[in-house]
């Protein structure tokens, strides 16, 4: 690469390239996007790995996430503290998993975390109800929501505990080839 940039050292860019599905150019572009979310907070010089986190409220204003009904859960699932404050590592991680090169297994893990609203490592009926309400913007009647949740759990639950564990979820996702193309955000 010919251009001299002082945002990251070469070693850092190599590390990012090996740990995510992005190339150097894309990582630099991502840093630009991260910086413009909070210019006063994010330094331009990342060579000494500053510990900067952008709060949830600023991240969900990104055009890619703004209208997404699951935006809060997406950002929370990728944050280390669980409250949605993303460091640059988490930011890159989020878009790397949501890129088109991430494999199905990795996407399934994070999709499971996103849909698990109460963070108990199961998708129980309440989680499903919340998912449904966010999907349909509460246009379904409560009886319909109830029926859909019961049927969905019946279909997907393999071991009969009326909740979806990660194994159940992954088994169901493996039957949907579309999952790879829909669980994808372009940045």
């Amino acid at each position, binding site marked *: 690469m010919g251009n001299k940039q002082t945002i990251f050292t070469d*070693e850092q860019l190599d590390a990012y390239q090996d740990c995510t599905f992005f190339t150097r150019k894309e990582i630099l572009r991502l840093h630009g996007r991260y910086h413009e979310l909070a210019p006063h907070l994010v330094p331009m010089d990342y060579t000494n790995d500053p510990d900067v986190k952008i709060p949830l409220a600023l991240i969900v204003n990104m055009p890619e996430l703004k209208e997404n*009904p699951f935006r809060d859960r997406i950002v929370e699932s990728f944050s280390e*503290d669980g409250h949605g404050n993303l460091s640059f590592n988490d930011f890159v991680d989020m878009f790397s998993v949501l890129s088109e090169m991430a494999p199905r297994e*990795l996407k399934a*893990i994070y999709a499971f975390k996103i849909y698990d609203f109460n963070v108990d490592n199961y998708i129980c009926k309440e989680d499903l109800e919340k998912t449904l309400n966010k*999907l349909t913007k509460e246009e379904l009647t409560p009886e319909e929501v109830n029926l859909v949740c019961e049927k969905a759990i*019946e279909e997907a639950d393999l071991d009969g505990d009326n909740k979806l564990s990660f194994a159940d979820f992954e088994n169901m996702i493996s039957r949907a080839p579309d999952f790879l193309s829909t669980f*994808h955000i372009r940045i």
Partner: protein
Amino acid sequence: MAASQIMEMTSSEDEDQDLIELEAIRRPYRAVKFDLTHANQEDLEAQRYHEPKHTNALYRNSWSSSTQRVLSSMPSRSIRFNQSTALSRSTKMRRRRPLSIVSTAHCATDQDVFRGQEDCDDDVTQNEDLLNKLQGLSAGECVRVLREMSLTVSEKRQIRAWVVCWDAGQPLSANRALCCHQFKSFISFLKVLCGGCYSRVSQQKSIKLWQGVLKNISAHFGTGILSYFIFLRRLLHYNILLFLITGLFLVLPQISNPPSSKNKPAATADLWMFTGMGILTDSVMFYGHYANSTNGNCKAEMKLCPENYNIPLAYIFTIGAGMFITCVMLVYRISKSFGRSFRTFKTTSNLALKVFCSWDFKVSKKRSVKLQSGNICIQLKEMLSELSCKKQKRNLYSTFGWLSLHFLVWSICLLCIAACMLAVYYLHPYIDQGSSKVNSFQKAVGLLKLPLVMSCVSHLLPGFFDMLSRVEHYDSPRTQVYVSIARNLLLKGCIFSVLCYQWLKKISGRKNEQNKQQCWETLVGQELYRLVLMDLLIAMSYIILAEFLWGLCIRNITLRKRKLEFDIARDVLELIYSQTLVWFGVLFSPLLPAVQIGKLFLLFYLKKTSLMMNFQPPRKHWKATQMNALFTKLLFFPSFAGALAFVIYTMWRVRPSSDCGPFSNLRSMLLLGKRWIRGLGRSNPSFVWLSWAYNNLVDNPLFLFTLVGLFLAIIYIHMQVLDGQKMIISRLQKQIDNEGEDKKFLIAKVQALNEASAQQ
């Protein structure tokens, strides 16, 4: 066993029947519901579920606290087990049973799948295990495993730093850079051409063409319509590659070394750009212009001397290489898409999939998001209503009516196709009868009649077929899409095969005639050129008339300001058809890929503008992955395969015309290649092995038969392996069901024991 009944039913054809019977059987087994606690007692309240409808008196849903303690400490319920299995998967030790990992890794490392968990005591040993696993892999594999691990980027960077330190101070990227540097730079050059086709393997990815535009389209319209534009971009890459190969190795040498001017003056013709006549006839555009042989005047400095370039040989090799590379790329893409869209079982869990997999995360505009929510809502309501009401059994009368309706629509379609075939047959211009009676403009118009009719038919008739198919009622929208694709393909295939038949007749008819003034190759090339251009013109006028003007009318007339719906299948088939024309024509007109490049650029921008102005986001869910797989397969067969067969047949069997083009004194084009290889051994001693290899391997039918037999045997083995794996999967699924039953049984027994001991 009920589980086996479930498995047999999932492979049957009738999906609705599956659902109803599945419910009937699974319901009794849903009677067991057990609560799990973590640490808090309050969680119990949050986890009360509704009473099951068919409660078996043996089971209940409230367990004693001792039972609950046992349940919550089950290893499969703990997060650690999930992590270990996920980790074992990603480190490619797939054949190892996960239980062995569990027994050695009871506690998590700091690599937590679910964040916010505390570290465990024996972190260090688990870290060492992981690092040992990573050490055993090559650098590329290591990177792949690292990327696919479900850890945070900061943790991955730490692991990477440890691996690097372990590796005696050499960074991973330096290791990779050292080996095969030149090979990799060649690969990256190819990737620049292909615009990121092989992005998973690449180190340096080129800037993708139209990235921002595609993002905007997907934000408004979603994945389905995006797939059309991605397909268009992919075709552009194939054409750029073909153009570069033919341009660099064929056109450029020919331009730099023009043949001695022939006695015929340059003919003028009206509308030469559209008909390909006139100035273009004797240009690098068409076959006839290319030199017959090398000019042997240049003696010294063999390499720099352009006149020593063997144009006929270059012709064969560039066309052959171009087709071969395109074939390899298509097969690679098919294998990739096949891997993504393959499903072992027919899915019955439609509702759960609809809830979890139908939201398109790419859509980011407010209005489109609202529409998408509305669509999903409607689809869920439809699915619920389908589940609640029983499927109506068709009686004989309605079956007869349904069949006769289908028969009627199919016969109308087939009649239309037959009419088009006749039209193409009779409209075919007899160019060799061209005399100077008609003036050149009328001659040009006469030449353009056939392409005009063909393009109009291929653009408009599928729309007519779609209108007809609205009368038919199909069981599922997928069947409707497949039937419309089949009819469309049949139409295009039939009229194109009539055209091919006309050409072959003309070619063979020419053998008997003595009148050999014209190059049949240039004529065929010109016809294909006219077809390609006319296709572009008709597509442009269709967009302007049927999309812009009609869309304007619809928007202003209807009260709800509805917009048009994008028909993805039809437009993709149009692209496949136009690409077929280019592949057929590249032998006779080496610059045709360049024309196609210009056409695709124009089409992209027109379609994009039209999409933004006149179309609404789709109402139905478009199964993008499966449809993409289907269209890639259609692009390969029959489109590319047909073109390849045609090119091979022409090169091998058909006698080139004797007074124009590079092969004018040969019986067939491939003969030159044969002669050259045979002569290579004699002229240049270091290439004797190549000549020997050709004579005894390529030209030897026995060897080819053996090779084909071996290939078929390998395919058969793979098919059997696949069948075996399907059987393993179904057995494993039965095993899962059985173990679920066992678990329920044991839990009930534990509860019974606890109650018995509590009573004592």
